[in-house]
């Protein structure tokens, strides 16, 4: 089985702080990590490979420093990695990102499954997975919580998707794009041997010129329909917490209940 995993390097948003004076992000010293959801996609790819054999190829579009994320994926056990990096890709929105990644997938040739995280924690859009599926005109299975069955011979799979009302069980033909949620597995740690392999590996960098039949006007800023026109700090929650105390727990609970009833939200 040929398995492709698309990953993104993101700033660890839990480490991002806001400068209270300017209302801007302070990214100094903020570590770059593999998007957490993508680590589950990598693990699922490795699990499928262990079960069915084949190869896991990890691809990422980003600046040269995104190489670190790919090396980490290799250290976890991915067989191959490719970095898509070119000034022509800079400023891509989700449309241009999905286009560029799918052009790279086409160059990679035959594949059975493409795995992505359900969304990235910096952009939080969840649009690139569906975009890749549509660009490649193949099945799209988002929010996958479990791969129940996969039959490479018959070319089908059955997955459970986590939706608001419960879990939907869907059967689809291969190849397919799967975007995965957190609960699907427990990502492994890189092994010592894996880290050594990753350190030595020369990961190829593909530029726009390396992607055959790619329309440069559909890449990067030029190919992106959306534009960011303003960035600002979110409104802060107003007021301080009102700490409720009482002579007894029951009294405090009674006061709190009254306050909440007065808010007319219950």
């Amino acid at each position, binding site marked *: 089985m040929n398995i492709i995993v698309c990953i993104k390097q993101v700033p660890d*948003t*839990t480490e*991002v702080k806001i400068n209270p004076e300017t209302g*801007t*992000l302070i*990214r100094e010293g903020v570590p770059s990590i593999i998007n957490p959801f993508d680590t589950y996609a990598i693990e699922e790819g490795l699990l499928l490979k262990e079960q069915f054999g084949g190869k896991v190829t990890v691809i990422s579009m980003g600046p040269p*420093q995104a190489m670190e994320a790919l090396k980490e994926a290799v250290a976890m056990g991915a067989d191959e990695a490719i970095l898509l*990096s070119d*000034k022509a890709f*800079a400023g891509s929105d*989700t449309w241009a990102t999905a286009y560029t990644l799918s052009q790279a997938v086409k160059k990679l040739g035959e594949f059975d499954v493409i795995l992505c995280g359900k969304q990235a924690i*910096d952009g*939080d859009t*969840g*649009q690139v997975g*569906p*975009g890749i*599926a*549509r660009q490649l005109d193949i099945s*799209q*299975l*988002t929010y996958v919580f479990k791969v129940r069955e996969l039959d490479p011979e018959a070319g089908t799979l*059955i997955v459970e*998707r*986590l939706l*608001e*009302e*419960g*879990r939907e*069980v*869907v*059967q689809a*033909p291969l190849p397919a794009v799967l975007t995965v949620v*957190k*609960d699907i597995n427990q990502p492994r740690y890189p092994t010592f041997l894996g880290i050594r392999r990753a350190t030595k590996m020369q990961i190829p960098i593909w530029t726009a010129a390396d992607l055959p039949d790619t329309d440069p*006007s559909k890449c990067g*800023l*030029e190919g992106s*329909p*959306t*534009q*960011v*026109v303003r*960035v*600002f*700090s*979110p409104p802060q*929650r107003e007021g301080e*917490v*009102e*700490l*409720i105390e009482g002579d007894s*727990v*029951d009294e*405090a*609970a*009674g006061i709190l*209940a009254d306050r*909440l009833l007065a808010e007319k939200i*219950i």
Partner: protein
Amino acid sequence: MALLEINKDECTGCEACVDVCPFGSLSMVDGITEVDDTCTACGACLDVCPVDALSLPERPAAAAEGLEAYQGVWVWIEQFQGEAGSISWEMVGEGRKLADRRETTLTACVLGHDVEHIANQAIAYGADRVFWVGDPSLAVYRTRPYATTLVNLVRQYKPEIFLLGASSRGRDLAGSVATELYTGLTADCTGLDIDPETNLLRQTRPAFGGNIMATIICPNYRPQMATVRHRVFEMPVPDETRQGQIIAIDPIVGEDEVATKVVDFITEQGEVNLADAKIIVSGGRGVGGPEGYEPIRQLAEVLGGAVGASRAAVDAGWIPYAHQVGQTGRTVRPDLYIACGISGAVQHLAGMGTAKVIVAINKDPEAPIFTVANYGIVGDLFQVVPALTEQFRKKLHK
């Protein structure tokens, strides 16, 4: 890689741009601005440079022709088992306002099987026109037939604005439709507005785990598409006397063209829809184990709310992932969020920080959850939560 061009001869090293960069991508090197790869080409720095030393490449307006042919506001009405979700009506309410501001019509797209009643509801909630596509192949949502149907309708009738709910299905569908149409899509909006000068849809959304807000436009492609979060916009009041036009559309995709099959749907006992919940009672590390959720459940039951959880509790295996609130779980926006034994890590706050009223119950008075809470009780949740349940039981006469 950064697209920002810096004219080093003009730069005076005033640092104005460094201070406004939302992403910390600019720094001073030898008295001159330098940009690194984290630049997102947002343009925030261009306006503040006193000597116009900063520039971004011009965007070609190649696709901007024929945009005026696109008119009207559309909303996709999501249905599950023949019932429309509240998020769809919230969007109809917001779509109505946008349509009025653009002095145009509001169209609802209703896809399903035996869902004519939803088409009628859409009119009552504020739509002028409904495209109603009924077919057994559309009974259960599947990406391909739904996306192809909407793509065809958009190509034929050319809406200017198209809104979908930022639910799992809405995001699944919108991503596919926008890709096929080659147009802009903004995910998870929490604010929509019409720019009075350009008449463009201004789409505002949180990013970076809720640390920043971004306003996004789509000037040269149509329709302008956005998914909108649950419970952001007011639920409109339906008016059964409203008149509108329901147009039945013949199915565009046959069942034989659809490769995916939904073979089962599993709803666990007590499974709750966190996204729609008005009240959420949530437990974290402080609940101590699976049995610790019992008092949480009881409070939720008395209040008619849903049960949430922090990542720590889910990772410990005390409660299923479907309950997780936060960055790697669900983003919720209830009227009331009661956090019990939750410290309030940044990742958790990102998922519930926009709740209208937040209550924190925690032993540790220093827990960060108290910094976002409206009300707090410092104490043992195993005493406070049952006491609160009892008080509500009395006061609500349950």
